[in-house]
């Protein structure tokens, strides 16, 4: 049952950047510093509020907390319904943190400053909104709100092929959104079948799912209603994750996007897909991937896709010559572990994938920031053209090692736990698939080590001799993430404790089928 303390906190976290936008509209275009300060303040407010939420969060319950529900459109029973549990709470904190850092990371933006920061604030509204929404309609609105700012941020402030990357990102995501919309309306229309009022509430839909309520819905082309909905929703979320073969927008978007936007894209936007799978697919249709005490063909398909992501993503990353593209493809490989954990549908698997989502959020954000740092100085990202940076930029190198080792899953750093636990979970259900997926793990380690050798060691190059080490601004962005990588590596229970009740509840729901 929802715990209802402080019902306005989530709305405040989500909507406070809108006030910043409003204030910013009245600042003249030329006042760059004022605009940036406003952006810092209004991404700082959600960060403070989400930390407040973090400390008030009740670790002992699996129910929704900070729950709030107001009528929005009564004619269709659409509600302004928000709440968080262990699955979404860490991601809200992550989003608020990364958006705050993104403001500092893009402090030097001088082209269309006002538009840039306006869009950044709008982006934050969309992302946080998705994580806290418990009404599917509201969820969908926030999901789409996020698209437009992202499109502009890539398309206006991006690299040379930005127009192509922006529209590709937009088209791919919209395909998924439209399928999600169709599934959402079908679920809404059918939700009143049991005699109750039709509803968009994800809690109500989960209740229907838990009571086998979708069983009698009409079949279509010989496939059951729940399977169609699961499929449509899965494609919608899979494009965001991104799951092979829907991943091709990702490298383009990452390479063209400015650094701060890559950070947000890898850090939180990809997590929306994984979160959506957990929140909507698994909770509403628990018996699609796990039924009668065993995994179903759907579950196996998910695991196979996860495996392809791990192995294929890793090998493709290995072949990259562009540093940023390499990091982008490593994200594809990492998100494969998230998918493996979800496919396993047991407690370990789900814990692993939620951990991996958070930890990949910090480590990949760090890596993209690091790539940005070197790109700002060298104006290229060709791995082969670097060399010997360790001796010119010692502080940069040490932080880069931290980021890279977290990302490749070195024990003792945060990245290890997510991958290890999700593989542990997956092994109990899909031993063969798990073993094959570990190839990905090895390849990830291999290409990251090769990158370290080629970029930071080797022959010193004179052209990089005068590069300055990290500036204070860059330290500000990197340090919090570095601390998180180490802290959560040594004390993973800090995070697992928060996740545990919700993940256990979801795992019980799934495996009891």
């Amino acid at each position, binding site marked *: 049952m929802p715990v209802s303390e402080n019902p306005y906190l989530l709305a405040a976290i989500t909507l406070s950047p809108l006030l910043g936008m409003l204030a910013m509209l009245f600042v003249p275009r030329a006042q760059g510093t004022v605009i940036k300060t406003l952006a810092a303040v209004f991404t700082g407010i959600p960060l403070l509020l989400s930390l407040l939420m973090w400390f008030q969060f009740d670790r002992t319950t699996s129910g929704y907390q900070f729950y709030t529900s107001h009528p929005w459109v009564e004619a269709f029973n659409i509600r302004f319904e928000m709440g968080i549990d262990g699955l979404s709470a860490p991601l809200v904190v992550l989003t608020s943190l990364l958006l705050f850092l993104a403001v500092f990371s893009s402090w030097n933006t001088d082209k269309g400053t006002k538009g840039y920061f306006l869009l950044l604030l709008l982006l934050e509204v969309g992302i946080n909104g998705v994580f806290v929404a418990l009404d599917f309609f509201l969820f969908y*609105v926030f999901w*789409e709100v996020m698209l437009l700012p992202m499109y502009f941020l890539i398309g206006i402030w991006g690299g040379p092929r930005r127009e192509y990357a922006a529209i590709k990102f937009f088209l791919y995501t919209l395909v998924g959104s439209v399928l999600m919309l169709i599934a959402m309306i079908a679920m809404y229309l059918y939700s009143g*079948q049991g005699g109750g009022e039709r509803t968009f509430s994800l809690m109500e839909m989960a209740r229907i799912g838990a009571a086998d309520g979708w069983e009698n819905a009409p079949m279509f082309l010989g496939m059951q209603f729940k399977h169609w909905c699961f499929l449509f929703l899965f494609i919608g979320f899979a494009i965001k994750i991104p799951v092979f073969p829907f991943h091709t927008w990702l490298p383009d978007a990452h390479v063209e996007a400015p650094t701060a936007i890559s950070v947000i894209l890898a850090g939180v936007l990809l997590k929306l897909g994984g979160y959506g799978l957990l929140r909507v697919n698994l909770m509403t249709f628990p018996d699609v991937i796990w039924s009668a005490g065993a995994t179903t063909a759907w579950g196996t398909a998910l695991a196979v896709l996860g495996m392809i992501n791990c192995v294929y993503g890793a090998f493709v990353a290995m072949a990259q010559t562009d540093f940023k593209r390499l990091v982008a493809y490593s994200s594809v490989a990492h998100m494969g572990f998230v998918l493996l954990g979800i496919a396993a549908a047991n407690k370990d698997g789900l814990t692993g994938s939620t951990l991996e989502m958070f930890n990949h959020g910090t480590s990949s954000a760090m890596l993209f920031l690091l790539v940005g740092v070197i790109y700002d100085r060298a104006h290229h990202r060709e791995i082969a053209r670097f060399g010997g940076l360790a001796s010119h930029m010692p502080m940069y190198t040490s932080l880069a090692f931290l980021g890279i080792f977290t990302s490749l899953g070195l024990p003792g750093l945060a990245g290890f736990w997510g991958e290890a636990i999700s593989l542990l979970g997956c092994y109990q259900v899909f031993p063969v698939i798990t073993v094959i997926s570990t190839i990905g793990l090895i390849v990830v380690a291999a290409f990251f080590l090769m990158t370290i050798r080629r970029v930071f060691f080797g022959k010193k190059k004179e052209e990089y001799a005068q590069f300055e080490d990290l500036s204070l601004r860059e330290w500000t962005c990197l340090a919090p993430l570095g601390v998180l990588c180490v802290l959560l590596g040594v004390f993973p229970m800090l995070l697992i404790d928060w996740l545990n009740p919700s993940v256990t509840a979801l795992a019980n729901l799934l495996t009891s089928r």
Partner: protein
Amino acid sequence: MNDWQTYLADLSRIWPEITLSATVLVALVCDLLLGGRDTRFTGYVTLFGAALSVYFVAQDLAAHGGGAGQSVFGLMWVDGFALYFKLLLGLGLVCVVLLSIFFRGFQRDGVGEYYSVLSAAALGGFFLVSTTNLLMMFLALQLLSISSYVLAGFMKRERRSSEAAMKYLVYGALSAGAMLYGFSLLYGHCGSLELSELGKAFARNIGPEGETLGLPALSVVVAMVLVIAGFGYKIAAAPFHFWSPDVYEGAPTPVTTFLAVVSKAASFGMVVRFFSAFDQDLGTVHLSQILAALAAVSMTFGNLGAMLQDNMKRLLAYSSIAHSGYLLMGVAAMVTPAGAKGATFGGLMMSGGQAVSFYLAAYLLMNLGAFAVVVYISNRYGIESVDRYAGLGWKAPVAGAMMVIFCASLTGLPPTFGFIGKWALFNAVLEKGLYWLAVVAGINTVISLFYYFRIVKALFFRGEEEAFPSPRAGVPVLGLMTLLVVLGALNLYYGIWFPQVAELISRLTI
């Protein structure tokens, strides 16, 4: 009561129409008195008339709700549906008159009569959405159409404008003939011009005198196909759309706006009225399948066609063909009997007709906005081509930002009104089990994103350094800018807060 008392009582129910008729005459006289010198003054007079009729409609709607309504002379119905549509048409007319006042293209020729003809066309629209009588329907449609032919050719010195009018006329005459023939066949079969009688006759296969009709399948099919062809022409649905890109491009932009918005809304009012009488599927005539196919073809063709366009008005013409397709989804849902294809979703939440009404409100706001931006840019910079918009968003940030809202709305992205409208249509078709149509519409939404955002891309993604004609001096922008911002704000407002509209729609008895 005496005859004349009844007559007067009936007359008092149609104040909006009376006001518009008066506007037609006053605008004409006004122009005569001014000798065509100050067309702007005539414009303001028309604006007043249009606003007054909107006021009467709004008052009636508030008093009436969405009730069944009253008959006027046995030819018109003043019910919630008619009032709602008249509200849309009236507001559309107000915006078109405003655009005409601001439009620079008119300022060379003295075109005072223009406002008179424009009001007459809107009057035709008012009658069109009110009537349930086939004869009256045809007359109202002709009032709307013939006025539109004249409007399309109003820029006498422009070849394209005259060509557009000619094309429009030839196609229009042909389709009017087809439709009239269809009506006459229907009358021949059922012995009545009243839609409700027709519906009953079809449902029970019994004529008004109680005789068994034994409707011959083939001629019913022929009649229906002819009627649908006539309607298809009027709403510019593929494959009856061939006139529309040329006419939209050639006509003066405010007239294009009128055709795309007011004329289309009125025609959809008629289409919904007509098909609402046939909610039972007519055994042999699978109306729902025909309409669903028409919807799918129209949206696909419109969207694919729009991808190739460079001229903004042509692009919006094809976009409007696609939107006719979306709207036809609602009409198809309306005539699909419940439970036809395993659709057992329970009680109806929003009927197809209501969804169409809902979407039209969004359609009106977003298209008016998009055309207003076209007028704004062509006034200031004299450009109508998408490619030459490059970088313009940085020069005219407000108009550019508003265009982003309108494009998002046209694509159907939340949080804009366009999304809410599209959601209503998806709701209607899924409820009736037309799953494939929903998927086709979904694919089309993605296609449409590509060309709507080509405009956005041109406006903002290109550098500020692109070469431009500098803005023309002495063009007043404040009025047009205000209109733009109001329309943009409404698109956002109703995208986030639409309970009132939903409430209003849910009371319409269609």
